[in-house]
């Protein structure tokens, strides 16, 4: 059988961490801007 090598799955980790960050930061920006918008009369 194959030797005990650790699978090279780093790409997925990077992708996931980036996607998560983009979504959370994106939502933060959305909220920030809505919080700064002028009050509706």
């Amino acid at each position, binding site marked *: 059988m194959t030797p005990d090598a650790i699978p090279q799955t780093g790409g997925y980790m990077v992708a996931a961490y980036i*996607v998560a960050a983009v979504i959370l930061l994106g939502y933060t920006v959305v909220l920030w801007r809505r919080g700064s918008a002028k009050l*509706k009369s």
Partner: protein
Amino acid sequence: MTLVQRGRWITAIALLLLGGIYVRAIVYTPEERLQGLAQKIYYVHVPSAWSAMLAMGMVGLASILFLLLKDPRYDRFASASAEVGTAFSLVMLTTGPLWARPIWGTWWTWDARLTLTLMMFFMFIGYQVLRGAVADPGLRARYAAVVGICGLVLLPFIHLSVYLFRTLHPMPIVLKPSAPSAPPAMVITLLSSFAVFTLLYVGFVVQRYAIGERTHDA
């Protein structure tokens, strides 16, 4: 300090801490032998799922309180929590398949967890679509509360049914995922991440609630 500002502060701190979690998870937490680096997705995926569930639970709770006490603040809070929950669900739904692909060999599978996450996402979306489609605020609040409560009661049934289904139809597993609770370093990273994601939930909800309050358009 206004409520919006308070929310922003909490969010900012939470995001900073999230950066810390990222560093800790990537650099200072040991790599798991059987799954490789992809296992580290856990530290983001699982806490975001927790935040989404927390959000849904809060929607349900606030909905019950609204129907009982008729206080529009509860409705406003429910609305805020639903939107925040959607964001966390999205994180959950994207990081999940990215973990599943290398580990199970497939992007998606109808197992208990993934199906539940997808249904939760649909519930959040449905809840907000409903809110958007009702003009009268009083009616909107009541309708939303009804859906919110039903959604909350539904969760255990979804989990049960899919779990029951999956125990009878075992999935082929390409790499067998081990429980990440063994080494203490991993546990600490996971638990810290839970705390940070909870704080982030709070920060988001406070901001969103404050925005709803301001615009009177929850």
